């Protein structure tokens, strides 16, 4: 696709690897010992392999990837904090990076002094900072506090100030890590509104994010960075789809380590299917269990129980030693986004006895899928088999 738009940033065949020290000590002694022993003292880790992409002027460019995929490394390479091992990074214009908010902020300085210091670190002259000063303060809503020392700010206020500098800094390319869009709800909304504004204004923005909503909402182009996966460049909607698949595959088989009790051993998996989520649980009886019920709970990571099921009369009155009970439960996926733990328990029918409770029989993560039921009492469609 030919385009007459100017290239703002070009990353060409960039490779980056790191040397991870295997010994903790950083000293002459250790360096000497390593040399004598012929040990390298580090292992090489190849983080980015042959990365190439272009960002045109006016692009709202998304970078997505899982934790540890090399996203931050790429960001630091773009911001010229790291140097690539090979390849080239060409930046046209003034790139303003925000890897972290409030770099160089000093608690003993006033808000005003911190803005000037931060501005100088980002490469702005005194006049340039003065020109954007009012807007920064206004956006942060901190007019009355500018002559107070930063240490007297609440942490929310500090973050607001830092983020306002990030957003109002007049560079031609803005590099933002979206995790940084913090503060209270109102401020967050304001930030997202400003993202939309930047998009309308055709500002060149590079946004690193975990949120597929943001990517689809703001970005017109995106890349997915992943170690095993080839680098994907393209439409944000496609990228978001690939990213979700990547995440879902990953959570397919997490089996809890704590899978044994006196009465039973458990193996459990959760799997995404077309209809929803399928849980396969197999319980091996280590003792004879009389009058059992099997309970099945899904907990949100905040501890809230979102789903509850019990076998009641659907299973036999006695489980013999060494028999294996297989349960298959399939639930329609109408879960909200988040991480969920599955708790499986074996109890007596009158609930007087708990034979075994497996708190994290398995876990799964829902990423951008389904709608949260507006009703508190919601009942997903379920299917159950017992063998």
């Amino acid at each position: 696709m030919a385009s007459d738009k100017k290239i703002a940033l070009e990353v060409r065949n960039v490779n980056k690897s790191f040397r991870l020290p295997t010994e903790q000590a950083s000293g002459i002694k250790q360096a000497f010992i390593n040399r004598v022993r012929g040990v390298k003292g580090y292992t090489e880790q190849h983080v980015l392999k042959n990365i190439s992409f272009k960002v045109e002027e006016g692009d709202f460019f998304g970078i997505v990837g899982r934790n540890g995929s090399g996203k931050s490394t790429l960001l630091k390479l773009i911001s010229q904090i790291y140097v690539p091992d090979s390849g080239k990074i060409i930046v046209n214009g003034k790139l303003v990076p925000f890897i972290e908010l409030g770099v160089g902020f000093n608690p003993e300085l006033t808000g005003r002094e911190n803005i000037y210091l931060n501005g100088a670190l980002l490469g702005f002259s005194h006049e340039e900072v003065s020109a954007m000063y009012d807007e920064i303060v206004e956006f942060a809503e901190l007019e009355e506090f500018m002559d107070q020392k930063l240490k007297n700010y609440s942490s929310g206020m500090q973050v607001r100030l830092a983020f306002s500098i990030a957003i109002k800094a007049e560079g031609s390319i803005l590099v933002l890590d979206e995790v940084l869009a913090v503060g209270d709800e109102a401020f967050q909304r304001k930030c997202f509104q400003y993202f939309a504004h930047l998009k309308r204004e055709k500002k060149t923005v590079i946004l690193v994010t975990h949120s597929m909503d943001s990517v689809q909402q703001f970005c017109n182009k995106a890349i997915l960075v992943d170690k095993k996966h080839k680098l994907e460049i393209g439409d944000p909607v496609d990228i978001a789809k690939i990213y979700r698949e990547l995440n879902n595959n990953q959570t397919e088989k997490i089996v809890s380590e704590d899978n044994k009790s006196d009465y039973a051993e458990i193996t459990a998996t959760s799997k995404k299917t077309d209809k929803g989520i399928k849980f396969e649980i197999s319980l091996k009886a280590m003792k004879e269990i009389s009058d059992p019920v099997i309970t099945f709970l899904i907990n949100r990571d905040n501890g809230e129980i979102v789903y509850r099921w019990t076998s009641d009369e659907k299973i036999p009155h006695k489980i013999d030693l060494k028999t294996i009970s297989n349960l298959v439960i399939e639930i329609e996926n109408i879960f909200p986004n988040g991480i969920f733990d599955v708790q499986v328990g074996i109890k007596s029918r009158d609930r007087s006895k708990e034979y075994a409770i497996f708190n994290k029989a398995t876990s799964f993560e829902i990423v951008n899928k389904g709608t949260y039921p507006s009703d508190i009492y919601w009942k997903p469609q379920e299917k159950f088999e017992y063998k």
Partner: protein
Amino acid sequence: MVKSGLLDKKNRVLLYELVKTDFKLRYQGSFLGVLWSVLKPLLLFAVMYMVFVKFLKFTDGTSQYPLVLLLGISLWSFFTEATSVGMGSIVGRGDILRKINFPKYIIILSAMMSSLISLVINLIVVIIFASVTMHTTHANFTNLIFIVPLNIIQLFFLAFGLALFLSTLYVKFRDIGHIWEVVLQILFYSMPIIYPLALVAKIHIFGMEAQKIIMLNPVAQTIQDVRHNLISPTTVPTTWSTVNNIWLAAIPILLTVLIVIVGAVYFSRNSKKFAEIM
């Protein structure tokens, strides 16, 4: 990215902001504030004067010696502070280096600037002290006083070159911190700071040779030059007056240039990787 020259406007602004912050924070919460910059060397001077001049009688017998001693201590304090603080500055500012790209030598310069400001304050104190006690110390101000800034520039660059070199090493090997402390101690006693150079000449074996070797040290050379040019051109021996050979006298200056070049090259080769290895 826009190419930036050495100390262009943006870098000057950054340097200014960093120095301002440093200076502001330095005496944060202290009652006497900036006054400490003046008080510290004066107190140190008082101790040294009592111990070395009054008790141990380390004096060259001239009436200017108290001034010479005070000046020497001020200059030495600058050298120690500038190199030590400069050495640790890169590691100390690691949090910023890992987040923003900017010319790294600015950090070292800014760290050294505070020491330089202290030195300037100290020099003013010395000059005032000399003027006030003129009747007993007989300071001899001549036109040579205009060369003093050049001597101080040499001392500054010497410290800068060393700081560039040491700070790079310090990123990799923290041992350098301890090593440099010891080296500074050795340097301190190897130079006529708290004792007059004439004392060395009195040693029977190789006294004269030792005197010459001592004065080839660029730190000794600059300190003696400042003393000579500022206070007493007639009584303070310099490298030139000691070695009396133009080739030998050039050695400390060449050493200074060499140290600056080696420091700058070593630093610029490694500074790109600072963010990664710290």
